[in-house]
């Protein structure tokens, strides 16, 4: 097996390179790429998991110690991986296209933001808020529950809808949540409107770990939990019922699958992952406002699921990583690089880069990235980069 030494060498070299050039985006992308290689290449399982564990538990925090922005990127990747895995249940497994998914993320985020900040005093009166820091850990579960209930509440009225009508209704629902978050500063001030809520309390960390590392490890822990739950669900009778509904609703019902229960469960499961990450997100950001929960975010998560492959767990992980890194690093990196070239007065083919319009900022084109991903994948590879195993088996015979 040539692949195992390659993997070892790649991880070692890239980690060393990052340590040598902690400011280079390209080198960090190299590190991420080698992790991807370890994740997908054929090699003994213990080696694969060992390498991944060392990289994520030791190398990544070490890199973060030298350049905290990379830790921030890694945490963001973790948040989006969990979101993509949640949406993957709804869209990929159960086949219910949810275009308002970010609403559940918002529900989780606001649940901690309100009670973990002095804002709750405005609602309930008194001086008892913010809650003590350790409540954050309780609220991880409160956020999970609240989001799941919201998922069921959304699911109930739309049970009869399918296909594109369901998609549009969930889109409308997402917009309603955003408009509510924007306007519920009166008659009762629940969300503080567009001004948002701040300061949101951060929890006490075990062993006094700094917050950058703390949120990274917490996100990683949640992601691992979500992956385990996902794996277990996928192979359970619930997962198979979901896929039956996706493939043929009528046949599934004839086989005794309870459509109501299973669809509601899909919405609740998908929503709960987003809810947990919402709580983490609000504590990490210290400040949230409705701008973080727009239709753009919903489509971003959808693009991650589509890119990786609907219904595929590795697909959702890789899709979320690639898209997040594209947005946070490649687009921004390109912007910075271009600015440096501009300032240095570089000319290309007689065209001075300094003459480029100031409004042309490559960092701002995430919609274009999402759009291109969605269209190209639909036309050329609707099953995604890493198709779901069960789908592959279906196509085999």
């Amino acid at each position: 097996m040539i692949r195992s030494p390659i993997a070892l060498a790649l991880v070692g070299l890239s980690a060393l390179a990052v340590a040598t050039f902690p400011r280079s985006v390209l080198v960090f992308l190299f590190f991420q790429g080698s992790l991807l290689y370890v994740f997908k290449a054929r090699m003994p399982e213990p080696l694969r998991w060992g390498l991944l564990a060392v990289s994520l538990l030791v190398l990544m925090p070490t890199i973060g110690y030298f350049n905290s922005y990379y830790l921030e990127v890694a945490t963001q990747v973790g948040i989006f991986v969990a979101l993509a895995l949640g949406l993957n249940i709804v869209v990929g497994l159960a086949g219910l296209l949810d275009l308002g998914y970010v609403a559940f993320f918002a529900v989780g985020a606001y649940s901690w933001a309100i009670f973990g900040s002095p804002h709750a005093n405005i609602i309930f009166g008194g001086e008892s808020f913010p809650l003590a820091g350790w409540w954050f850990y309780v609220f991880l579960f409160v956020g999970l529950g609240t989001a799941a209930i919201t998922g069921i509440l959304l699911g109930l009225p739309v049970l009869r809808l399918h296909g594109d009508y369901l998609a549009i209704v969930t889109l409308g629902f997402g917009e309603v949540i955003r408009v509510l978050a924007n306007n519920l500063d009166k008659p009762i001030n629940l969300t503080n409107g567009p001004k948002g809520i701040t300061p949101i309390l951060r929890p006490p960390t075990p062993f006094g770990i700094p917050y950058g590392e703390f949120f990274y490890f917490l996100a990683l822990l949640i992601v691992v939990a979500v992956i385990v739950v996902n794996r277990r669900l996928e192979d359970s009778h619930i997962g198979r019922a979901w896929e039956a509904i996706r493939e043929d609703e009528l046949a599934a019902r004839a086989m005794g699958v309870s459509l109501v229960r299973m669809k509601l469960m899909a919405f609740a499961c998908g929503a709960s992952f987003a809810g947990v990450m919402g709580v983490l997100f609000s504590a990490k950001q210290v400040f949230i406002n409705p701008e973080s929960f727009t239709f753009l975010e919903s489509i971003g998560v959808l693009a991650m699921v589509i890119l990786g492959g609907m219904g595929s767990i590795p697909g959702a992980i890789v899709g979320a990583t690639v898209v997040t890194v594209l947005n946070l690093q490649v687009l921004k990196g390109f912007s910075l690089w271009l600015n440096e070239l501009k300032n240095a007065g570089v000319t290309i083919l007689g065209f001075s880069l300094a003459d480029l319009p100031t409004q042309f900022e490559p960092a701002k084109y995430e919609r274009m990235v999402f759009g291109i991903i969605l269209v190209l994948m639909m036309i050329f590879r609707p099953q995604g980069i890493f198709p779901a195993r069960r789908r592959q088996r279906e196509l085999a015979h």
Partner: protein
Amino acid sequence: MDVELLIGIFPQVLLDGIILGFMYALIALGYTMVYGVLEFINFAHSEIFIFGAFVGVEVLLGLKSIGLLDGLPWPLVLVLVLVAGMAASGLLAVTVERVAYRPLRGAPRLIPLISAIGISFFLQDLIRLVESLWRNAFNLVYPTMDVLNLRFELSETIDVSVKSLVVIGGALLMLWALHLIVNRTKVGTAIRAVAEDQAAASLMGIDVNRIISLTFLIGGAMGGAAGVLFGVQYGLINPYSGFIPGLKAFTAAVLGGIGNIPGAMVGGLVLGLLEAFAAAYLSLLTGGAFGAEYKDILAFSILILILIFRPKGLLGEVVRERA
């Protein structure tokens, strides 16, 4: 509560509602015609609409820069801008269909919808990119034409601007032309035949692909006209300002019965009026507790309720669910 104020603003609100309603009706036609022939929600129609507005502003700015904006008679300028916006949006719609929808015909229903969402996002940023490179700005202001801002005072509380008359007149003209095309011409018969039954239509010697392209062309042109009128009426446009009106227009199409052309017009007017009244009266009637922003929630709630309880809409085209 000031009852006199409530009654006093009524005619003005009614007028605003009618203008908004015609705008929605024009955009809704694009959604409903495409849905009629393909049973497919053309999610990118909102960008096809705003593209018309951008072509319109470019033509106006172009005329201004060569000094013809005030040199030509204003009706001619308006016609020029409208025609340019319609042609551009119509061609864009045809191109989008050719590139992103046609290869996916026959695929499971969600696949073309996702592709359409992708196109929608792509076009938003493409418009931004082009305008940023070309003008170094992507929030554009429609150049004012003095004639359009003339106002007639009908009474103390109502005045009508030439602009709003132009918008209403333009919309009526478009709707009338569309009615003639669809119901009085051979091409219109072919469109209706394809909507009814593609296979049978193709057996009758109708080139289905050509008719589908034509449907996109006509629907897109209507969207482009709406875009120009939108710019003339509201003045300020940016690449993302088509999205919400597009969604509302889709609501209007569903409200009237998607696939149903008169339905789109009725739905557009109803929604426009509801929204104008909500925007004007909600805040007054609730003592400021619920502001005008709740008009959006009203529109989306209507969409959700109609889809759940009466998916065939007010005028009731039968909706076939294809698995």
